[in-house]
């Protein structure tokens, strides 16, 4: 395998609703910044891959317009995944591994505010037997939380503590959306939204975009003073049938974590794509993180959940923190599908 490093990361400040700019206008400054910071000329970037979904944008072929923001003239080598940007980064990493290119741009975007996200995501389920029941995301996550609570793996207080900690951490992140000091006892006194989930257990609705530039060994060292090395990256899938899974576990995360080599060294912190508070607790276990490992110092998805970018943002935020010298080895994670169905794990080192 070739050594590959993240050389720059950029994102929009995450907001509840981007009502003024369209997707292209939202993306341009992010891509400008990530290319500028990479130290690689736009024309020299070997490959570009984006991640997005038509169901957020409310139109078919919505990723096509994003090409306008990239500068695809003269024509570029480019691809797109109908997945979170973390998988766009994976495809870009594969291209570098092929030896075909030495650098790549991965980006993603989405505006959850345009539609009703929880209902839209119900369209991810089996169209014949499940989707007609319209199981919204929050209800499916609630089923998962209930299993974990009943098995005694965590308590509602543990979940509230996750939410409070994430939103406290987000106070240090100028680009996070939902932040502040919350008292756990007060949170627990709030009524249920969808039992056993309370409002604080759920992510905000966010609009935004994120972009990463990666480069192979020598180029990365040449253009960056602080390249952040991708030491392992792997992704795995679980069954789609909620009834056939033990929802309190995440075997695909566990397997991806093993393949990515999480346990091959100490972990200083983790950025986990856990949109619901209890999912952080499930992921922690699946990744075998020690109790003292700092999770989501950026605030994580409970502070800003730009769907399609939230996974890529975890990798980006982790790389930023390492580049800033606040940790040497970290794990970043992205998820997709109902109740953590698909998971990507990435091990980063300074």
């Amino acid at each position: 395998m070739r050594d590959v490093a993240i050389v720059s990361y950029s994102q929009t400040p995450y907001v509840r609703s981007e009502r003024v700019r369209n997707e292209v206008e939202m993306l341009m400054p992010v891509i400008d910044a990530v290319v500028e910071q990479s130290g690689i000329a736009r024309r020299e970037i070997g490959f570009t891959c984006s991640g997005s979904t038509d169901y957020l944008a409310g139109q078919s072929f919505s990723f096509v317009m994003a090409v306008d923001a990239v500068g695809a003239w003269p024509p570029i080598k480019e691809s797109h995944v109908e997945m979170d940007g973390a998988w766009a980064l994976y495809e870009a990493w594969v291209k570098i591994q092929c030896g075909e290119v030495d650098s790549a741009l991965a980006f993603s975007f989405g505006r959850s505010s345009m539609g009703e996200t929880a209902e839209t995501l119900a369209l991810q389920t089996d169209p014949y037997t499940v989707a007609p029941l319209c199981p919204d995301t929050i209800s499916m996550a609630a089923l998962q939380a209930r299993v974990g609570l009943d098995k005694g793996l965590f308590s509602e207080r543990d979940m509230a503590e996750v939410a409070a900690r994430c939103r406290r951490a987000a106070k240090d992140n100028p680009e996070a959306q939902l932040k502040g000091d919350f008292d756990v006892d007060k949170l627990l006194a709030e009524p249920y939204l969808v039992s056993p989930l309370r409002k604080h257990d759920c992510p905000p609705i966010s609009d935004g975009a994120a972009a990463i530039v990666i480069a192979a060994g020598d180029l990365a060292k040449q253009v960056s003073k602080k390249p952040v090395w991708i030491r392992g990256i792997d992704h795995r899938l679980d069954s789609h049938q909620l009834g056939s899974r033990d929802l309190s576990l995440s075997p695909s995360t566990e397997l991806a974590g093993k393949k990515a080599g999480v346990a091959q060294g100490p972990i200083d912190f983790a950025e986990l794509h856990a949109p619901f508070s209890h999912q952080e607790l499930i992921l922690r276990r699946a990744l075998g993180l020690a109790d003292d490992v700092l999770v989501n110092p950026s605030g994580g998805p409970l502070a800003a959940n730009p769907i399609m970018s939230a996974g890529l943002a975890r990798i980006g935020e982790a790389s930023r923190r390492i580049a800033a010298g606040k940790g040497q080895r970290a794990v970043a994670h992205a998820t997709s599908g109902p109740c953590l169905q698909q998971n990507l794990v990435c091990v980063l080192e300074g």
Partner: protein
Amino acid sequence: MSEEQEPVTRIITPVKVDYEYTPGVTSERFLLGLKQGKLLGAACDECGRVYIPPRGACPRCAVPTSKIRELAHKGTIITLTIVRVPSDNIDVELPYCAASILLDGADISMTGLIQECPFEEVRIGMRVEAVWKPEAEWDPAHR
């Protein structure tokens, strides 16, 4: 199964999702221009090429097109088609002629209907002028 049954080959599950679209900063200027009977293009901040309708970026340069340019209502047909197929999202009576028109002063063509002359007379290179609907119908947001 004890009884012979017809296999289920189809079920209908209606999907309804509502969206609120945002035209974007530059497109909004164009739409507001239409309300005033103006054709507003936008010039690329870098190469100066004029886009109409502007979509927010000059894709050549990947920079915004922030300089608004009012364009003439005259142009030249670049290419055309006669449409004879109905579509749910089109309210024009069939058949009709849709043409790509390069407005004077623009660097990209826009689509327009050619309704004021017989199809056989429409050709590439022909000069055309915009014919506006009655002012009361100028509302691009609700057409």
